[in-house]
């Protein structure tokens, strides 16, 4: 699996490269800025690009713009955006068109190597990965007549994993239950929340997120 990295801190960039190398990825490009990343994505067509959201020169929105550009011009390339803050507004922007092949995680997550590598593979394969912080903040919010109160604790767990982009298999692994049981929980959750059930695992991320936000 081929990866391109855009990160302006040398320490982190090289640490990441080593981590990915160890995990069996082929790091085809290490870039300091967005322009370089776009150029290398064009030339090497990696399976996935890891993009720091704050890139030179201004450290404002260069990273995000590069990520959105890769998503529109190279839909086959997965994009995993890393940031020291995760913002719901940016998640909605990144997932606006589709949640396929896109991830948005706190930078801290890279040190949890197994999970990070799992999320990266998922994004490279066209799935999605959304930082659990975003989902848990939204889920923990108190609502009047809270529709979430109808969910069982297990269903809540499934909901959070689902909103983070986990596949049914992933949820099954995480909760140590069968895929069939996961499917049952998912359809029960969609029924209780009044959401139209969608076939695709990545499309339901946005549906759940939108539901939680409102």
């Amino acid at each position: 699996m081929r990866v391109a990295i855009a990160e302006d801190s040398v320490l982190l960039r090289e640490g990441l490269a080593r981590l990915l190398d160890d995990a069996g990825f082929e790091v085809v490009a290490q870039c300091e800025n967005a322009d370089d990343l776009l150029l290398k994505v064009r030339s090497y067509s990696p399976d996935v690009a890891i993009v720091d959201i704050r890139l030179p020169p201004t450290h404002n929105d260069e990273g995000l713009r590069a990520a959105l550009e890769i998503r529109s011009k190279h839909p086959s390339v997965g994009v995993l955006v890393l940031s020291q803050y995760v913002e719901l507004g940016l998640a909605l922007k990144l997932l606006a068109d589709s949640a396929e092949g896109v991830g948005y995680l706190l930078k801290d997550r890279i040190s949890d190597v197994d999970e990070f590598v799992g999320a990266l593979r998922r994004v490279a394969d066209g799935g999605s990965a959304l930082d659990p912080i975003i989902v848990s903040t939204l889920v923990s919010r108190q609502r009047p007549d809270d529709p979430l109160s109808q969910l069982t604790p297990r269903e809540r767990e499934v909901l959070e994993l689902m909103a983070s982009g986990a596949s049914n298999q992933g949820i099954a692994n995480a909760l140590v239950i069968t895929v069939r049981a996961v499917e049952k929980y998912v359809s029960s959750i969609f029924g209780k929340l009044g959401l139209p059930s969608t076939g695709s695992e990545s499309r339901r991320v946005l549906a759940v997120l939108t539901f939680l936000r409102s």
Partner: protein
Amino acid sequence: MGASLQIGAGLATTAAVAPLGRRNVGLRPNLLALGAIAVVGCALPIRTAVIASTTNDVDLVQVALLDWITIPFVLAGLVAWWRRPDSRLGPLMIAGGFASGLSALQLTHVDALYTIGAVFDILPAAFFLHVCLAFPDGRLRSRFEQVLVVTAYSAAIGLQLVKIALGAFGTNSLIALGSWPSAAADVQHVQLLTISATCLAGAFVLVHRRRHAGRLRRHSLELVISSFAIGLVMIAALFVDGDLDGPAFQQLQRATLIVIGLSPIAFLVGLLDERLGRSAVGDLMLELRGEPPPRQLREALARALKDPSLTLAYWLPDFHTYVDLDGNPMELPQDGERTATVLERNGVPFAALIHDQALDDEPELLESVGAAAGISLENGRLQAELRARLVELKGSRIRVIEAGQKERQRLERNLHDGAQQRLIALSLQLSLLEQRLEAEPEIRAELDQARHEIALSLEELRDVARGIHPAVLTGHGLKVALESLAARAPFPVRLTVDLDQRLPERVEVAAYYVVSESLTNIGKHAEARDASIRVARTDSRLVVEVVDDGIGGADTEGGSGIRGLADRVEALGGRLRIWTPRGGGTRVEAEIPCA
């Protein structure tokens, strides 16, 4: 009233000009004027007597017409000299009058007098041109005008002497060298056409000047200029007619003399009208007694000066600049159609009248108006100073807030690129290390614990950094930043952001803090079930509204949070309002200019 007055534009010039009352006067006109009147009084009867005694066929009409010119010119000249000792116009008019009187001597048969009369024959025309062009301050304004006048004098004196020498005035003339009639005729031809041309050009200059004069120039001044222009055209016509031996020379000559004699009368009427202008100062004094507010002062002064375009400038020594009544800095005009008259108190400027250039002709009026308005202008100056200080205060308030903002941004950036980045890298290193130590479960557990500590530190740091400055706002704008704020609120928030582009950073930051502080307050005190945020731009204002359905009755005085918000919004010229009826929810509304 200690106010004195100076004419000039800007400080440099005013400093160089002495106040009017102590103006350096080159000539004291009183004695000379009396002398001149005496000379004229004696000279005219003597001359007429000489002419009558030496001539049989004297043309008395002609003599009377020359007196008709001489007397008004000398009298008007005396008045002008007396009123404007620093202007050369008075002496010039007197000289012109004398020249005209002397030219009548050519009607005698006494050779010496006849010669003098012959020499002065054409000169009055050149004087008249000079007076016309030098009106009203005695100076010629352009090189072109100087060339015209010098040419006219040269032709009127130089060519006249040549002509007489060639015998044009017969051999009676004492300076005739012989009789060469055709050469004399040639010289006369050149002379008359030259003077005609300069007079026509002079008339053109006057017409042009009148068309470009300020709107307020008095009708009587226009009358003077018109009569000058007509006189110049008639002289030109007369000389061409004479040169070509055209028809009705005598009638034309008389008409010309009548018109030229009328122009000093128009000049005197103009002076009288200016006197009447003084009564406007009396009206002004009455009006000022009612102590009009500074805004109405300008209108009153404009009426007194008959210049609707008048503006006032106040000198603020602390700021070292002139300002308008609202305290905005302004420059005095340096040249062109506007002139500044600087008003001083004890030698220090305190205000300036900025008026049409045409008022420069009436320094006395400016002086009286300036003196009459002294105290009222001083009040206006105090008001202008107050406003200037307010403007400055407002500016420094914005600067303080912005400097604080920049500093916060810098701190956040340092945390982000420094401590946070290093901790993440450290955590990554630990986990790589951990992977190599598969055989050492105990060490692995410790490393894992260390990573967990780092994760907690990072979380705390993240909250601190976000509190210092929301980087998402700078990077991605108000809409994205508010989306995250709303998402982090512990209660449901309906967010409507109607913005199609980024706003100035200080506006975004202020709006962000209004929402952030309001949400914090709602979370702490309001016991609200939900809240709604509405952000929209209308024209040049950003309106931010945060409404909750809580218990209301919020403390808007004690909390430093609300006070700080209001400061921030007001510093940008905006307004923060809060409605918080007990039991009726709370509504915070900020309006921030963002043009």
